[in-house]
């Protein structure tokens, strides 16, 4: 039995310490992802806390056939959507350039970070699919489960997302050549 499964078993038995150990490795990754879906750093932290509490509370419903990270991301995505309220506005609408938590976490020298462009160019679900694929190296199947979408939706939108970003990159390259 792997360490993760042992910790899951102990956490299922009610051990908060085991659960804290279990999710320790995921906290930074989750927070980084939640920053892309929250209007402020504090909101992202709150959603992370709510996500971990919900995961611990409902750990009995975790199906070991899923990867634990997939299950965790699914809860995080739902909590992030819930924290934005029932109107389900796109995160782009909430963003305030000065207080953008993602912008704040990217060094000034790295303003060409592709995720900043991705967030402007892609809708929330496509952005999340791209993130889970390229930042988290998740499989298509796991992304589908996390987003509660079909595998074909995931494949098509990953392809669209890539095309949009490639077009953007090519356009930016041509522009810099023109000015260069």
């Amino acid at each position: 039995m792997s360490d993760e499964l042992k910790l899951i078993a102990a956490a299922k038995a009610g051990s908060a310490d085991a659960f804290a150990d279990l999710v320790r490795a995921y906290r930074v990754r989750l927070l980084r992802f939640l920053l892309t879906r929250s209007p402020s750093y504090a909101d992202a932290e709150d959603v992370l806390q709510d996500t971990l509490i919900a995961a611990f509370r409902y750990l009995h419903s975790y199906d070991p056939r899923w990867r634990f990270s997939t299950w965790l991301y699914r809860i995080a995505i739902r909590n992030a959507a819930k924290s934005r309220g029932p109107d389900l506005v796109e995160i782009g609408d909430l963003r305030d350039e000065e207080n953008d938590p993602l912008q704040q976490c990217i060094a000034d020298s790295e303003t060409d970070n592709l995720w900043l462009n991705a967030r402007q160019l892609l809708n929330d679900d496509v952005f999340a699919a791209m993130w889970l694929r390229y930042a988290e190296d998740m499989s298509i199947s796991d992304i589908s489960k996390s987003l509660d979408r079909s595998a074909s939706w995931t494949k098509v939108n990953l392809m669209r997302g890539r095309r949009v970003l490639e077009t953007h990159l090519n356009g930016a390259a041509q522009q810099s050549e023109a000015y260069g």
Partner: protein
Amino acid sequence: MDKLARQLHDDAQRIDVSVSDELDRRIEASLRAVTPEFEESYPAPVARPPLFGWASTITGVAAAVALIAIVNWRAPAEPVPPPVNIVAAIPSIELKAETAVLTGPLQQELDRLQSDLKKAEEKVKQDIGL
């Protein structure tokens, strides 16, 4: 991994994020305050007596035998009445009747009407003095 995938992966890692000690403490404190829900436990099935299986098997076989016997059971043959000749019982209609037989009543009715007409005609003549 292609160039775009590599760039996306590296750019994600360049997002500088850390879980502060304050958040860490907050999370751990809230986890300790949570009581995880457990799956509903169902009562364990009560062990059956050892002969229960045999008893139910014998009951099943007996029921099957009884059912087969009932289905195949036949009452003693009762005397069967001779078959009725349906063709003979139903009165046949004489389709080849003479035309006069069929039109007779109509002819009689016609005669009566003509007779009444004649009488009425004579009465009218008497009334007008012809």
